[in-house]
């Protein structure tokens, strides 16, 4: 089993120094979502990342070992920062891998924005596959 899907995140910070979670969407998914939980025995590889927005926009890929907890803890497993306003495309590099061993884990995309207002976008390609593939 191998499922390659696109996750599109966006947010509209209203001022400098803000941070938060990106609202997510995907062609395979009905409606917006905030995080992705996959079944146990699956691993997710985050391949390409594309960012656009204002200078300083930092995309954070975050992982929780138990998103079902009352207050889940999130660990940043990857961060990419826009050094200048515009876009950044990161492809053809080793993927970030997240392992879903209990089915309670989750991935989400967050942002830290250091400069100010404007809509920011992030597009990531995620490949979900069986753990032994």
């Amino acid at each position: 089993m191998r499922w390659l899907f696109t996750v599109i995140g966006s947010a509209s910070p209203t001022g400098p120094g803000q941070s938060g979670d990106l609202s997510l969407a995907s062609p395979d998914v009905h409606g917006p979502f905030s995080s992705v939980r996959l079944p146990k025995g699956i691993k997710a590889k985050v391949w390409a990342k594309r960012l656009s927005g204002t200078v300083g926009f930092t995309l954070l890929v975050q992982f929780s070992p138990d998103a079902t907890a009352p207050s889940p803890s999130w660990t940043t497993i990857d961060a990419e920062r826009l050094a200048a306003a515009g876009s950044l495309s990161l492809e053809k590099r080793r993927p970030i891998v997240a392992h879903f061993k209990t089915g309670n884990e989750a991935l989400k995309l967050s942002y830290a924005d250091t400069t100010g207002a404007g809509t920011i976008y992030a597009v990531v390609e995620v490949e979900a596959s069986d753990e032994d593939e």
Partner: protein
Amino acid sequence: MDRVVDELGLVVENGFLVLFFPATQAALVFRVRARVNKGFEVFDYGPLPIAAGSALTTYLGGSAVAPEDGVLPPYSYTGDVRFPAIMGLENVRDKSDVWYLDKDDSDRLFHVKVSLSPPIIRADVRIPSGVSQIRFQRERVVGGVDGPLGFSRGSLEVVHLPGLIYGYRFGNDTSLPLKVYSRFVYAEYVVETPRSPELIFDVLQRRVPSHWLTMPVTYLDPSIRSALRDVYGLSEPWGFRLYRIDERDAAIKEYSAVLRRLKV
């Protein structure tokens, strides 16, 4: 080169197809006389037949409502699904199930390979519809998309026998409401049973190449007995039982008796 299936995994003309039933420990052996849709095997069905607003059971113990046609809510699974005729297929024998073959279609089989998008969707098939066939430790546990075992992800391969309604089930054990689409690669075979018991013995000994498909039938439901009896003229032993290689004489004798009763 003994090639029994083509690049799509479908049996070539004049190839042998073995359908083995764990419930009876017996097999049906067919020779494919023709493939009527050769070269036109792909059937993009579209969204799964899940109607917007329909209630689905969840793995968490409650229920969820499909927000849109073909959408499987998070942590939910369907009941038995049949594939109704879509536009252009209204003349099928049963509009509620494009894969249904009547008992009169005894020389026909549908070999169906279902692909799901996204492929993380769980799938199983119940033969007949409503009867779970996946067992663990004899009868102690019944499996399927609603449990931790007894399903596949993203694809299924099954042969539709005449006179039986199959029930497909699908499950989504992710946190996302997924839009699920189905695509079929199928063959409509015209089949016959080889009339030589020696050949059948050799096929079942795997001396003669065949495409061997184990049917998900661990319990011989009365409707399966009825279909095997009415369509193929079978009764106990419900097909060709497997014999050891040193039991050739006994096998040939039994196969000859089965062949005398077989209609196809």
